[in-house]
Structure formats: C-alpha cells, structure tokens
C-alpha cells in the first residue's frame, strides 16, 4: 500500500456483455441506424392525429362515464356469446388436449404417435387465433360456433404442449415403481402419471379459461361472435360511451376470473 496519488485517478466501468470494442461500436451504430430508418418510415398524418385528439378525449370521457344502458341488448347478447364460447371451448379443448398431450410425451408414447401429436401442437401454436378465426368463419359461417372452434383449437396447442412437457418431467422413479408391479400402460398412466400432473392440469385449464375469455373479445372483430363484434360495432359508430362500457366489463370479468381462479387453485390443492 502506498500514498493515494500513486494510484490511477480514473476508472471506467468495463463493458459487461459485448467485450470487444469494435463489435460494441458496430452494434451501437447498427441500433442507431435501425432506429433512424424505422422512425423515418413511420408516416404520420399530424393533422389527422390532431383531429383525432378531440375523439380521443371523447373516448376517455366515454371510459369515465360509460353508457351501459342504451346498447344493453347488444352488449348482453355479446357477453352471453363470449362467456358460453369461453366455457364450451375450454372444456372441449382440454378434453382433446389430454390424449394429445399424453401422445406428445416422449416417455409414454411410441415414436410415430409422438411426432403426429407434436405436429398438431406446433400447427396450433404457430397460427394466431385471429387467423384461425378467419378460416373457420369462412368455412362455418358467421357466429359463435366458428369462435368456439377457434378457441378450442387454440386451447389444444396451449394445454397439450404444457401437459406433454410436464409429463416428460415427471419423477421417473415413481413410474418405475409402478411399472415394476407389472402394471399395464393404462394403469401406469392412472397411477404414476395422473397424480403427478393433475394439479397442474387443473391450474392450466383455469388459466386457459381466462385467456379464452380475453381472446373471445377479439375474434368477434372478424365475425366469430362474442363481445368483440359488439365492441367493433360500437367503435364503428363512434359510440365511445358504449365502447367504454364494454371495455370496462371486459376488464372487470378478467379481474374476477384472475382472482377467482387463483382462489380456486388454492382450494383444489
């Protein structure tokens, strides 16, 4: 140890992630160039935006003073469609997901079944709900039935994937113990796998119920029924107070669903 002035008087924080100076510079320049190009490509019609401010204000007012009454018939119709769609699609989706999920678990299914099930999951996950809804509406006509099919299909990708991953991660020793008793494949699933993944399956289903409701509010925009169609009409007609009411209802239902599903999960475990 020597006198303080023997030591360097400056210190710079060493870079943590990209340590090479040239790479860092290139990266920084790259980011700046991208941002300039990206922001430059956004054409904004400012006079239109300015006009819109007044509408925005009206929308916020509509949100603060929602009008539930004047379109109540449409709103209640949309809500009933959304809620029934949510429930039926979750039930059907989960029911279909269970065999697919088991089939997509490497430790339970033969190779060829595994690949088929994983392919179904991949397709379901890759496509947006909205895009699926467009196709189903084109095939099955407008209305909640197309929405029900859309949400069921989307549920399969979600539940089956997580279920399969869960089954693949089960405690192998328990499965081995059951297998060593001479149990058949069905008994194995029933005794070794089911108890381990059941709580999580219930949790996932409740979570998916929540997601399906949120999605049901969207797919109506392309004609698949539900509250989304009502909302779309309200916005098209510039009835912001009705739109505000619908949004508030959606938020409230999501909050209730989130709260009660966490309660239910605690209760079931």
């Amino acid at each position, binding site marked *: 140890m020597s006198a303080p002035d023997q*030591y360097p008087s400056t210190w710079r924080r060493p870079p943590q992630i990209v340590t090479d100076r040239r790479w860092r510079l290139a990266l920084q320049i790259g980011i700046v160039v991208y941002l300039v190009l990206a922001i430059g490509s956004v054409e904004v019609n400012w006079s239109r935006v300015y006009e819109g401010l007044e509408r925005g204000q009206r929308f916020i007012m509509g949100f603060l003073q929602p009008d539930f009454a004047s379109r109540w018939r449409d709103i209640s119709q949309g809500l009933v469609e959304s809620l029934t769609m949510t429930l039926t699609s979750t039930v059907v989706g989960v029911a279909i997901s269970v065999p697919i999920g088991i089939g997509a678990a490497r430790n339970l299914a033969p190779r060829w079944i595994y690949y088929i099930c994983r392919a179904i999951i991949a397709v379901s996950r890759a496509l947006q709900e909205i895009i699926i809804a467009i196709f189903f509406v084109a095939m099955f006509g407008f209305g909640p039935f197309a929405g029900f099919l859309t949400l069921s299909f989307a549920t399969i990708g979600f539940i089956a994937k997580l279920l399969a991953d869960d089954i693949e991660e089960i405690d192998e020793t328990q499965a081995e113990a059951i297998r060593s008793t001479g149990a058949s494949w069905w008994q194995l699933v029933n005794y070794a796998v089911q108890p381990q993944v059941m709580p999580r399956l219930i949790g996932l289903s409740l979570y998916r119920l929540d997601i399906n409701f949120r999605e049901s509010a969207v797919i109506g925009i392309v004609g698949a029924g539900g509250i989304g169609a009502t909302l779309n009409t309200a916005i098209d007609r510039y009835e912001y107070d009705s739109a505000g009411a619908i949004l508030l209802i959606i938020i409230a239902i999501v909050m209730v669903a989130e709260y009660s599903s966490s309660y239910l999960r605690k209760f079931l475990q």
Partner: protein
Amino acid sequence: MLKLEGLSKTYKTGDPALSDVTLSVPKGQILGLIGPSGAGKSTLIRCINRLVEPTSGKVMLGDVNLVGLSKADLRRQRRRIGMIFQEYALVERLTVMENVLSGRLGYVPFWRSFMRKYPAADIQRAYQLLDRVGLLDKADNRADALSGGQRQRVGIARALAQDPELLLVDEPTASLDPKTSRQIMRLLTEICAERGLPAIVNIHDVPLAQQFMQRIVGLRAGRVVFDGTPDQLTESTLTTIYGEEDWHEMRRGDQEQQEAEAEARDRMAALAK
C-alpha cells in the same frame, strides 16, 4: 465517541428486543458484542445507524443524537458510520470497484454516481483501499465472481471508503471457514488500529472474540449482562450470558433476525420518496 443512552427497541409483535442499553465506546476501541442468538445483537447494531428504528433512548455519535434526525440529516450522519455485513451484502451484479465506490454515495451528487464519474481523489482512494485489502487486481471483476473471503474484503473496503468515524460489523465471519475467519478478523483489527477507528463487532464465536477484541460486552435478552476485558470472561460469566443453550433460544434468535430484516425491508418503502 459513541454513547448509547437507555436504548430500547420493541418490535411490532410486542417482543422487547433491547431494553435500556447504555454503553459508550471511546475512540480506537474494538468492542465485541457476544450473546446467544436472539439476545438483540443484530437489533442493537442496526439501531445505531437506524436501519432499525429504536423505540426510545439516545444514540450520540460525537455531539449528534442520531435518534430523531430528519431523513436528509440521517443520511449525512450515516456517512460517518461504516457498516460491514454478515454474508457481505455486496451488490452482486456490480463490479468490485463499483461496490467500493458505493461507499462514497453519501458524498457525491446523484449525477456523478449515476454516470460512474467519481472525483479523482475518490477513485485513487478506492484503489488504495483495494490494495490494502489485497484485491487490487480484482477491481474490474463482478462481485459475484469472488470467493467468500474476497467478498468480505470488498465489504470492508466499501465501509472504509466512507471515511467512517465508527465501524459497525455484523457477524463478519458467519459464513466463512475458520481460517478465512481469522484472516478477516486480523485485517479488521489491523485497519482499526491504523486509523484509530472504534468498532462494534457482533460475533457469535467466543474464542474468536477473546482473541481479537479489546473489550467484550455480553447481551442476554436485550440487556447488558457483562462488560469487561476478554480475560475477565470466565466459565461462570459465560454461563450468565448464554445460560443453558436450548432450542427455544435458538428459535427466538431466528425470529429476531427475521424481524430486524423485515423492519429494514419495510423502511425501504421510504426509498422512492
């Protein structure tokens, strides 16, 4: 230098953790605080720099009573008190140098600390301290890349960077192996001697306390039951301090530690103001 007068602390749960502690520490003295877990050692040390708010009593640092100071004044006074923690409490994801420089936070304006542009004197001093604790070559390493003993050395350098007039040391060796423990204790006592720094050291290891401390205070259930030199610490005085160490006491200890931490956490709510 430091005078505690009638210091008491009762937690929200109603447990009295400290009752009527009066103590004075002169300049340059290293005081070891021993006692069973749950005796109030952690609470006592945290009441001094008000990481835990004392219920009543006075904490006189020089001429200033720390109890009842406003938030800004308290910050100014905290600069004078360096603290070294159990399990180091370094900011794991910052570099060693940043950890040492964080000891200067009370002295520099926000923009300097934010830009990491500390005054040249602070940086030289930080390097000097790192050299003193033998970690000059680790300045640019991240704190979570160091071993336990090295981390505690950084903790010491951080406390010293404050230019403190008093050191509070909370179980400095609790998570270290015996050999490293001795090295850390030696370093601490040497540094205190070099600067004539008074220190209060919480320590659960009695032999270690006897080896390194000049004065020992025994706490039991929040009260001072022994105050003397290490060689006055006999078998019988140890029994008065520790009693028959049973599980009940140990559990209470954990609880007290948790309460102290919980309260410190609550007080973090004041942060963003």
